[in-house]
């Protein structure tokens, strides 16, 4: 933990801004701002690179925020934005759109799938107006398994469209454009709501009973936080497919530096998630053959996380 964790925020912000500038100059074509083929470079920067970069930035922030909140809410280090079936639901929705509608309305279907699966979990685990965290987790896993069986079935029967479902599931910002970015702007808007509840999250980390005694309306807080982070995740999933590891690992890494205070942890995670996904996507799009960004985040994220874990336990 840093001595002044609050200073991490401006530092990350500066890194983020510099990253935006640098990644905008990088592209597979090798054309950069210094090339004076003005029309092409203008088009590449404003219509191809920038939408992708900003899209990756917003999705990265959203996934990290949702992951941070889920971990705090479930008091479980394994929690990530997809823990209660959001990704499987989204994938099933997208697969249905690909197989039955030829890819039409895919983002909409992914969003509906992601939201519907989480709401189902939510309804299942509610009893007498209360919702136990363990029940929520377990029913999330059950629904997720059921949906993944359906997904496997659709993939098995999908014939020629199988590769398209595979591409989608690995996650990527292939065709990001400004309209997708417009949609992604809902993520920071929703994240503001999460931030408002960051104090309550801190209290709830003590345990639900304790939080109630300290005057936190835990049921209401849980509902709102779950709904908002599901909304963020569903938007992210509908834009870019299932990108793993950002939501799981970034909050952990940031917690090492900032400590458990969500008031700092949440914005720090969002900034770090943006930076990570932006660079991962830049890497993905500058390879000779584009690689799904989800593979890169997992490939780089997991070893780095293991390194941090080992280092922390040694100290």
């Amino acid at each position, binding site marked *: 933990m840093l001595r002044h964790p609050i200073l991490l925020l401006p530092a990350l912000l500066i890194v983020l801004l510099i990253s935006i500038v640098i990644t905008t100059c990088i592209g597979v*074509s090798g054309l950069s701002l210094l090339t004076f083929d003005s029309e092409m470079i203008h088009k590449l920067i404003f219509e191809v690179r920038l939408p992708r970069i900003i899209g990756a930035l917003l999705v990265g922030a959203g996934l990290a925020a949702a992951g941070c909140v889920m971990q705090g809410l479930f008091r479980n280090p394994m929690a990530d934005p997809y823990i209660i079936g959001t990704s499987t639901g989204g994938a099933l929705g997208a697969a249905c759109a690909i197989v039955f509608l*030829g*890819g039409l309305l895919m983002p909409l279907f992914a969003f509906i799938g992601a939201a519907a699966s989480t709401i189902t979990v939510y309804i299942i685990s509610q009893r007498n107006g209360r919702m136990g965290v363990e029940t929520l987790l377990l029913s999330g896993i059950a629904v997720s398994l059921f949906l993944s069986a359906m997904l496997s079935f659709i993939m*098995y*029967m999908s014939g020629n469209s199988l*590769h398209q479902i595979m*591409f989608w599931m690995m996650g990527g910002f*292939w065709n990001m454009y400004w309209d997708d970015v417009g949609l992604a702007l809902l993520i920071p808007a929703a994240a503001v709501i999460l931030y408002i509840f960051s104090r309550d999250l801190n209290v709830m980390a003590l345990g639900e009973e304790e939080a109630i005694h300290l005057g936190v309306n835990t049921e209401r807080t849980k509902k709102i936080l779950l709904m908002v982070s599901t909304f963020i995740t569903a938007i992210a999933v509908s834009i870019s497919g299932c990108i793993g590891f950002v939501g799981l690992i970034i909050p952990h890494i940031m917690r090492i530096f900032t400590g458990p205070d969500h008031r700092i942890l949440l914005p720090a995670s969002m900034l770090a998630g943006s930076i990570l996904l932006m660079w991962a996507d830049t890497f993905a799009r500058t390879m*000779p053959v584009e690689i799904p960004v989800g593979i890169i985040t997992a490939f780089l994220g997991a070893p780095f996380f293991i390194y941090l874990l080992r280092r922390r336990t040694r100290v």
Partner: protein
Amino acid sequence: MKHLRILLIFLLVLAIFSGTALGWTPVTITDDSGFESVIESQPQTIVSLAPTNTEIIFALGLGDKVVGVTEYCNYPKEALTKQTVGGYSTINMEKIVAANPDIIFANPMNGEENIDYLRQLGYTVIVIQSDSVEGTYAAIQMIGKCTGTTAEAESIVSDMKIRIQAITDKLTDVTEKPTVMHAMSVDPYWVSGSNTFQNELITLAGGTNAFADVNGWGVVTLEKLLTTNPEIILVDSGSKMGTTGENTLQKAFLTNGRLSSITAVKNDDVYVMDSDTFDRSGPRIVDSLEQLAQILHPEIFGNYAEPESTAASPGFGAVLIISGVIGGLFICRRK
């Protein structure tokens, strides 16, 4: 009278000779997986585990002997009436045992474990891999050899060679070879690079593959697509499930504002290729090649007339889902 006797003797000799020709001498075949099989008697029942094999078998006039095909075997029409034994890697062993074929023509895509299993069951399995024009000739000849239709095989192959020769002859002096992109998906842009069957056809038809630097099939970024700027774009038609590929791919290229600077899009040179012939290395590759030559060099081969779209529109599925949702809402409200 004497003439008649000579004629009769001649006919008799001819009959004896052709008789021995009809008799089966066991053949030893080393297939494309390197496996050696001996075919002791002429196969009377055949199972095909790939659309390519099915097309070749029917072209050799062996349609009547076919007792099993895959669900992807849609050409010729008669193949649709045959019993299906599964997909590529999802073969139903029980159906094959029930069909009890004398010979099975497989494809590496069936998966090694399936092929090994069929061999363990005692079937003669010939694995055929044809992912080039030469490979297609070899595939036709091998199936011919296995089934005693060598003459038919040779005539198909020589016919194909003549037709391909006719195209390449006209292209010998052509120096202007348009850059061609072959896309199988737009989200992401998934293209055929070098060392692909499509690359070979594009080259044979007098074009240059715009993404020859991609090895095999790969994904290219929008940025790369814009800077590569292909002069002609070929998109795959859909087949089997998700048949909407045809219109959506072409439309995606022509209507996406960000692609408007690409030469092919500007000149409306985005063509739908029938994926059943263009991606399938059977006897019909020549049809694809002739089509492609027309697209790439209309000044030599005449203008290309795009065939009518046969793909199903996505409309039906959408209507079904929307009406389902409305119906569901209605029922909920009634409660």
